[in-house]
């Protein structure tokens, strides 16, 4: 018992002595002396840092189109057994990839995706439903073309702002330019036909009168070898611009641009 008490006393004495030494050392240390600083290396500056998150932006003026990947039957409703309204080919009469302007979408009872597309058929302005799988990836445009057949004026807007205006010639009274909502289907250049000027755009609009025209009577937007007839009502339904104007339009208007003719 006495032995154990002696050990406890010895430990307490040693602890007290150690504390006294520590206090003495601390008190003796200079208060303003140089303190060695040990710092970690600064992080390596990154080569770039992304800015703030980028919002979706204004989608009011966007239109969506997609290439037609496989022939499809457009139907009245988004159902495989709904009545057929048109057949959609993968190529245009000019040999370019056919495209579809997408104006709606839905799912059927089997949860398959369908898209509603603007049809390049008569009557003009028709729409129909095709399986989503019939078309490829979506592309968007923020341009819109307005053709005023009364005032013989064409206006191109981007995101709602006017970026181009030109005078036009439109269909003669016997072969009028159809009115309604259409879209630009393709763009042709370097062909040997002066009457179409240097650039021609194909549209989804079809002449209601020239139904037996080769390739279906599609209405184009193109230049001309008769600039003296612009503006005027002289064409077979096509929208003609002076060649300088069609070249300017071609630099601003992408394929897929929606068109309103009124």
């Amino acid at each position, binding site marked *: 018992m006495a032995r154990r008490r002696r050990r406890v006393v010895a430990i307490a004495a040693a602890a007290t002595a150690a504390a006294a030494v520590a206090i003495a050392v601390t008190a003796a240390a200079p208060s303003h002396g140089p303190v060695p600083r040990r710092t970690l290396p600064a992080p390596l*500056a990154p080569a770039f840092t992304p*800015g703030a*998150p980028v919002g979706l932006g204004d989608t009011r003026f966007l239109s969506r189109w997609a290439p037609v990947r496989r022939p499809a039957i457009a139907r009245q409703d988004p159902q495989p057994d709904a009545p057929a309204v048109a057949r959609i080919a993968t190529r245009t009469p*000019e040999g370019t*990839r056919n495209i579809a302007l997408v104006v709606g979408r839905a799912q059927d009872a089997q949860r398959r995706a369908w898209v509603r597309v603007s049809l390049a058929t008569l009557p003009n302005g028709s729409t129909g439903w095709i399986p989503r799988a019939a078309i*490829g*990836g979506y592309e968007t445009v923020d341009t819109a073309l307005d053709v005023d057949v009364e005032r013989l004026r064409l206006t191109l807007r981007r995101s709602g702002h006017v970026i181009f205006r030109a005078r036009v010639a439109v269909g003669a009274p016997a072969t009028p330019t159809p009115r309604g909502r259409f879209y630009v289907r393709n763009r042709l*250049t370097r062909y040997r036909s002066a009457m179409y000027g240097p650039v021609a755009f194909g549209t989804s609009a079809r002449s209601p009168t020239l139904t037996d025209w080769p390739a279906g009577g599609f209405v184009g937007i193109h230049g001309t070898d008769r600039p003296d007839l612009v503006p005027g009502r002289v064409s077979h339904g*096509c929208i003609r611009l002076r060649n300088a104007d069609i070249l300017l339009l071609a630099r601003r208007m992408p*394929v897929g641009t929606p068109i309103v003719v009124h």
Partner: protein
Amino acid sequence: MTDWQPTLGAIDRDGALTEALAEITGETRAGFLRGAVLGGAAMLGALARPPAASARLTDVGILNFGLRFERLQATFYTQADQMGTIKTMPARKQVWAETLGSHERAHVRIIKKVLGREAEPRPTFDFGAANETDENFTRTAVAMEDLTVALLGGVTPVVNDRRLTAALFGLLTVEARHAAWARHIVGASPSPKPFDTPRTLDSVAGAVRRTHFIAARPNVSASRHAPRYTG
């Protein structure tokens, strides 16, 4: 949080990712569907390739691949937002999807700026029905975010410029948060294992290529084709 792991079969309804990964491993599609757990050994093992292919790449090449992949993701989210797919989701999923979209667009913007004239042109994307519905969108997003983490984990250490490495680490950690968030959204463990095995750029490129999400540009213009319009 449940221990449920999203399998490729559950996530990849169109089969694009499954086909791609099954092709890499040489397994049958059915076999892959049975065994592949997203983020698990089977899927990530499928992405593994010898590192030699990455070692040949320049920093510009790596950044351009990063740009392509960021564009893929940004377009996927942006289209879903523009089409209205995201608007059909519950509020918390909308926040998730919109946030990821805004981040991916910011990534595209900065990488494009850094590359300047060296930036590759924007590819054409075809997601099919993958971003048309809430269900398809969510499942594909989970797979894409995991793939992005695997890609950045593989390429970040092999870039030559250390400051570029530092920048890619910044992207990697954010993409890892995206992946974890996406997994949380589908009820899977945000962090299923203690270590992520890095993958080579080549293997991720192969997986992406086989999804067919990057498509050929449609030929909508022609020269020397005579117009057949009414005139």
